[in-house]
C-alpha cells in the first residue's frame, strides 16, 4: 500500500505545520550549534590558558582569571544546552498535538465505509506512536542531523587546509558511503514502514481480542488467540531485527570506511612527512581534526535511520489525512421551509465501495408520508440495514436520490440532516458513560437542565427502560464499555430511548425490538405508537409483531422494493412476504386454500 515517495516530498508536507515554529526551531538549531562549538572551544582555550599564563612562580591573578574564563564558558555551554530545549520543546509538542487533534477530527469526519476498512489499532498507532516519534525527530533528530552535517563539512574543510592529499584520501571514503547510503535508504524505508504497519496490526489484534473476549472465552479459544498474537508479534520482532541489521550494516560501513581511509592516511602522511612534504605539526593537527569528524560521521547512521522512520511516519499520517471525506455538507445548505418529514426514495441505488458493480439496492422508489410509519421487511442480508443507513447519510446513494420534504439529502448540511433523522442501530452502540449521557447523546443541547431531564424521563418511559432508575446510581450509573454490564434487552431499550430522545422528524429504527420479550415488546409498542404518530418512521422488522407498529409495509427483495401495502394486503397477495414473515407453518401448504383463509380473516378484521 505504501507508494514510495522521495524523502523531501514527504517531509515537506510537514511544512505547513512546522512553519509557525520555524523561527524557534532555527533558534534551537543555533543554540545547539553554539553549544557544540563551545564544547569544542573549551579544550583549545584551556590549552592556551595553561600554556601561556601558568608558570611556576607566576601570579595568582592569572590562575583566577583562567578559572573564571573556564567557568563562564562552562556555564555558557550548559546554558545553551538548556536553551536549545527551551526553544524547541514547547513548539514541537504543540505541533504534535495539533497534528494529533487534526487527525482525530479528520477521522471523525471520514465516512463509515472508511472505518469499515481500517482497524482501530492502525489508526491508533498513527495517532500515538507515529506522532510521538515525529515530535522527537523534530526536536532532536532533525536538528542533530543539521548540526552533524555542518560539523562534518567544516571539519573536512579544516582537514583540507591542513593537507589536501590526506583530506582527499579521507573524502574518497565518502563515495562508497554515499552509494551505500542510497541503498540503505530504500531498504531501510521499506522495513521501517513494514514495522510500523505491523505494530498497527498488532494493536488491532489486541483490540479485537479484548472486544471479542466473550467469544474467546465461550469457546475456550484463548490459547489459539494467543498463538495467533504470538505469531504476529514474532513477525514484528523479525522486522525490527531486520531493521536493526540494515542499520548495523550501515553503521559498519560508516565506521569502517573513514577509519580505513584514515589508516591509509596515516601511512601516506608519515611517508609524506618523512620526505618533508608535510610538517609533523600539520600531521598531528590533521588527525586531531579527523578524530573530531569521525564521531559525527558514525552518528549519522542513527540520525539517517531516524529521519527515514520519521518519513514513513509522515507518509502514514498523510495516508489517512489524504483520504477524502465524500459525505460533506454543500456550500449552500438548504432545509425545507417547513419540516414535515416526508421521506422519499427516488430511484435510489446503492453499492458498497468494495463491490461497486454489485449494487445491494437497485432503483428503490418509496414514498413515506409525514408521520407515517413504514416497516421494511426482507430476508437476512437483503439490504435493509444498508437502506436505513442511507437516510442519515452514513452511506451515500450511488444512484438516484433521497429527499426529505422534497429537499435532497445532499443539500442538507450533514449536521442538520442528522438532527432531523435519528437512528437506532441493530447492534446497540453504547458508550462507557452514564445512562443519562447515552440517552441524551443526540438530544437538543439547548434548554435548561429540567427540560433535558424531562426528555430523558420520557424517552426512558417510552422505551420501557424504567430499570435504569433502579441501577445502583440510577440514571447516572456508568454502564461499562459498550453497555456490556446491562442485559441484552436493557441495552436495546437504552439505544431506542436514545433515538427517541433526539426528537427527530424522521426516525429510523433497525429491528429495535429483537431482544425484547413479548410482554415488554407489547408495552414498548403501545408507547411507541404514540410517539410515532407524528414522526415519520422507517422500521426494519423481522416479526409480525414489529410490523404491527407500521401503517404500511415495504418488501425488499433482491435489492428492489417489490411490494408496498398494509400487512394484511401483503400477507394476502404476496407469496414472498408470506415466506419472510409468516411463521406458523413449516410444511408446504396449499396456497390457494390458504389465500382464501386469509381473505376470510381480513374480512373478519375489517368487519
Amino acid at each position: 500500500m505504501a507508494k514510495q515517495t522521495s524523502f523531501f516530498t514527504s517531509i515537506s508536507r510537514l511544512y505547513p505545520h512546522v512553519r509557525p515554529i520555524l523561527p524557534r526551531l532555527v533558534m534551537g538549531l543555533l543554540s545547539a550549534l553554539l553549544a557544540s562549538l563551545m564544547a569544542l572551544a573549551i579544550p583549545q582555550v584551556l590549552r592556551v590558558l595553561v600554556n601561556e599564563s601558568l608558570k611556576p612562580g607566576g601570579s595568582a591573578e592569572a590562575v583566577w582569571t583562567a578559572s573564571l574564563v573556564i567557568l563562564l564558558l562552562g556555564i555558557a555551554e550548559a546554558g545553551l544546552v538548556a536553551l536549545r530545549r527551551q526553544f524547541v520543546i514547547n513548539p514541537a509538542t504543540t505541533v504534535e498535538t495539533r497534528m494529533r487533534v487534526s487527525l482525530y477530527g479528520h477521522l471523525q469526519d471520514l465516512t463509515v465505509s472508511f472505518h469499515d476498512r481500517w482497524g482501530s489499532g492502525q489508526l491508533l498507532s498513527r495517532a500515538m506512536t507515529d506522532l510521538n516519534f515525529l515530535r522527537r525527530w523534530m526536536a532532536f533528530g532533525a536538528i542533530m542531523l543539521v548540526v552533524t552535517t555542518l560539523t562534518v563539512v567544516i571539519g573536512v574543510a579544516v582537514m583540507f587546509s591542513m593537507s589536501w592529499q590526506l583530506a582527499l584520501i579521507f573524502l574518497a571514503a565518502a563515495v562508497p558511503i554515499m552509494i551505500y547510503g542510497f541503498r540503505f535508504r530504500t531498504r531501510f524505508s521499506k522495513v521501517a514502514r513494514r514495522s510500523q504497519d505491523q505494530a498497527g496490526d498488532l494493536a488491532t489484534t489486541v483490540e479485537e481480542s479484548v472486544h471479542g473476549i466473550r467469544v474467546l472465552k465461550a469457546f475456550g479459544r484463548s490459547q489459539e488467540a494467543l498463538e495467533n498474537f504470538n505469531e504476529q508479534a514474532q513477525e514484528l520482532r523479525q522486522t525490527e531485527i531486520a531493521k536493526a541489521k540494515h542499520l548495523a550494516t550501515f553503521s559498519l560501513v560508516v565506521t569502517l570506511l573513514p577509519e580505513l581511509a584514515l589508516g591509509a592516511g596515516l601511512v601516506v602522511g608519515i611517508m609524506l612527512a618523512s620526505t618533508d612534504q608535510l610538517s609533523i605539526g600539520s600531521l598531528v593537527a590533521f588527525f586531531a581534526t579527523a578524530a573530531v569528524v569521525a564521531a559525527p560521521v558514525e552518528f549519522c547512521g542513527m540520525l539517517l535511520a531516524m529521519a527515514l522512520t520519521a518519513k514513513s511516519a509522515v507518509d502514514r499520517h498523510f495516508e489517512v489525512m489524504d483520504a477524502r471525506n465524500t459525505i460533506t455538507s454543500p456550500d449552500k445548505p438548504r432545509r425545507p421551509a417547513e419540516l414535515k418529514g416526508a421521506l422519499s426514495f427516488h430511484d435510489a441505488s446503492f453499492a458498497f465501495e468494495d463491490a461497486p458493480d454489485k449494487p445491494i439496492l437497485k432503483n428503490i422508489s418509496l414514498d413515506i408520508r409525514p408521520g407515517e410509519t413504514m416497516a421494511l421487511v426482507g430476508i437476512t442480508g437483503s439490504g435493509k440495514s444498508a437502506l436505513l443507513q442511507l437516510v442519515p447519510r452514513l452511506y451515500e446513494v450511488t444512484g438516484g436520490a433521497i429527499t426529505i420534504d422534497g429537499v435532497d439529502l445532499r443539500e442538507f448540511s450533514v449536521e442538520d440532516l442528522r438532527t432531523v433523522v435519528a437512528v437506532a442501530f441493530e447492534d446497540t452502540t453504547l458508550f462507557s458513560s452514564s445512562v443519562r449521557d447515552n440517552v441524551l447523546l443526540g438530544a437538543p443541547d439547548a434548554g435548561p437542565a429540567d427540560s433535558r431531564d424531562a426528555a430523558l424521563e420520557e424517552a426512558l418511559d417510552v422505551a420501557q427502560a424504567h430499570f435504569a432508575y433502579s441501577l445502583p446510581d440510577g440514571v447516572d450509573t456508568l454502564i461499562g464499555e459498550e453497555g456490556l454490564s446491562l442485559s441484552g434487552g436493557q441495552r436495546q431499550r437504552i439505544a431506542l430511548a436514545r433515538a427517541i430522545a433526539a426528537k427527530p422528524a424522521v426516525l429510523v429504527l433497525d429491528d429495535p425490538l429483537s431482544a425484547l420479550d413479548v410482554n415488554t415488546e407489547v408495552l414498548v409498542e403501545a408507547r411507541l405508537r404514540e410517539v410515532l404518530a407524528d414522526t415519520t418512521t422507517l422500521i426494519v422488522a423481522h416479526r409480525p409483531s414489529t410490523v404491527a407498529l407500521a401503517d404500511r409495509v415495504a418488501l425488499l427483495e433482491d435489492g428492489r422494493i417489490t411490494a408496498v401495502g398494509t400487512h394484511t394486503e401483503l400477507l394476502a397477495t404476496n407469496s414472498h412476504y408470506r415466506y419472510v414473515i409468516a411463521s406458523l407453518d413449516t410444511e408446504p401448504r396449499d396456497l390457494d386454500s390458504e389465500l382464501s383463509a386469509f381473505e376470510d380473516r381480513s374480512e373478519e378484521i375489517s368487519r
Partner: protein
Amino acid sequence: MSSATFGTANEDNAHLTRTESKAVRRRSLALLGSLIRPVRARFWLTIGAVVLSQAARVAGPALIAFGIDHALPALRAGNSLPLAFAGVAYLAAAAATAGLTALYVTSTARLSQAMLLDLRVRVFRHTQRLSLEFHEKYTSGRIIARQTSDLEALRELLDSGVSSLASGLLFMAFTAITVFALDWRTGVLVLAAGVPMYFLARWYQKHSQIAFRESRVVSARLIVHFVETMTGIRAVKAFRKERENAARYAELSEDYRRATVRSINLNGIFQPGLVLIGNVCVAVVLLTGGFRVLSGELAVGVLLALILSTKRFFQPVDQMAMFYNSFQSAQAALEKVSGLLEEIPTVRPPQTPVALPYARGSIDFNGVEFRYGDGPVIIPRLDLHIPAGQTVALVGQTGAGKSTLAKLIARFYDVSAGSVTLDGVDLRQLTTEDLRRNVVMVTQEAFLFSGSVADNIALGRPEASREEIEDAARAVGAHAFITELPDGYDTDVNKRGGRVSAGQRQLISFARAFLARPAVLILDEATSSLDIPSERMVQQGLAGLLRGTREAGTRDTNPAGTHGAGRTALIIAHRLSTVETADRVLVVHDGRVVEDGTPGQLIGDGGAFARLHGAWKDSLV
C-alpha cells in the same frame, strides 16, 4: 504490600504516597528483572560488544601516536617495518571497531525485541485469563494503551539505554583511573562532583517520577477516548457527537502535551545541570591545580592533561542523563503494566482438577446465589437439576437473569454461594480445556473477528477441515449466502464482521457452535436477528445436532459415543417457536425459576408461560 495500589486499583493516580510509590516501583523493577533474566546471556554479550568496541576505538589514537613518534623516525632511518605495523594495526583496529559496533547494534535489537515480545505475550495471555468481571471495569482502551504506548516507553529504554549506559560507565571508569594515576588529589575532586550530581539525580527522580506517571495516565485516557470513538463511529456520526468529541480530545491531547512537556522540562534542567556541575568541576580543578603549579608542586603538562581528562570524564554524562530519563519513563510505564499483570482472575483454573474429558451433560445448580461483583443479588437462591440430553428453554422478561444463569453454566463468572456442577463435578474443579470442550455458549452479541468466514467458523474447532466447516454452515443454512460472497468462505468479514449483515453474523456464530459439538450447548438469543425462514433452518439444524441424528458418531471426536443420546441444550429465546420444541421450559423472574414443566403442561396450567405464549401467538399475525 499496600493494598491501595494493588493491581490496577489506583492506576489513575500519579501522586502516590511514599510507601505506595515504593511498592509500585518495586513491582515495576521486579518485572524488568524478570524480563531480563531469560536473556541475560545476550545482555552480557551486548555489554561485552560495547566494551570491546570502546577498547578498539581507543586503540586508534594510540596507533597514530605510535606512528608519529616511532614509525616516522624509523622511516626516516630507512626502516619501514614500524610504519607497516602501524598501518596494518590501525586497519585491524578499525575493522574490529566497525564489526563490534555492528554486532552490538544488532545485539541490542535482538535483546530489546526478545524482551518486548516476552512482555507483549505475557500481557496478552494475562488479559485473556482475566475474568469478564475485570474486563467490564477495565476498558479495552486501557489494555491497548498498556500494550502500545507503555511498551513503547520500555522499548525506548532498551533500544538506546543499554549501550549508552555501558559505554558511558566504562568511559568514565577509564578516565577516572587516568586522572587518579596522574594526581590523586584531582581524582578526589572529580569524585566529589558526584555528590551534587547525586542530589540532582535524587531531585530529578522524585519529580520526574510524578511527571512520567502523569503522562502514562493521561496517554491511557487519550487512547481510551480514541478507541471508543473509532469503535462507535456510527453512533458518533448519527448523533452528531463529533464536535463535543473533538473538544474533549483536544483537551486530553493538551493534557498529554503538558505532561510530556513537564517531563521533558525536568530533563531540561537535569541534563544541563549535570553538564554544569562537570564544567564547574573543571574550573575548580584548574583553580586548585593552577595554584599548585604556581608553587611548583605540579608540572604544567600534567595540569593540562588533568584538566582535559576531567573534561572528558564528564562527556558521557549527557548520555547518562538520557538513559536515566528513559529509565524513569520506562519504569512509570512498567508500573502500570505490572499492575495489570498483578491482577488476579476471579475465575481461576483449579489447583487439583478433576478430569472430565467427555461429559454426559447433566447440570446441577446447588443452592446457587449470584451477584455481579458487589452489586445487587441477581440470582437469590437456585436449586435446579437438568438431566443429560434435555433441551431446556429459558424464558422470561428482559433483565430477569436468563443470560446470567447461562453465563454461570459457561463459568464466565463464579457463583457467589453454592455450586454449579457438570456431571456432578463442580465447574470450579474442571480445567479450562475440559470445561470449554464440554460447554459452549453462543452469546447474545454475535462477535466476529476480522479474518475469513472460514476462520471465524473454525473458531468452534480449530482443527476442523474445510469440509466440516462447510457442513456446519450448511446445517444452519449459512452456506448459500457464504458462497455468494466475493471469495466465498475466504471472504474477509472486516472488523467486527462489518462486511456481513447482522443476521448473517448470527448464522456464522451459530455455525461456530455447531462445529464445536459440545455436550452442553447454550444459545443466548442466537436467532434474534434472523428472519423467520432462516430461523426455521437454524431450528432444523439445531434439532439435528441436539438429537445427534445428523451424522451421529461419524465426525464426533467422542469415542465412547455417549452423544448418541443427544446433547444437553439451554436455549434462551424470546421467540417462542424455538421454545415449543423444548423438552422443558423454565420461566425465570427476578432470578428465580417461577415455572418449570413441559411446554404443554405450562400452557395447560395457565400461568406466566401460558400468557406469554398466548401473547406470542397473537403477535404472529
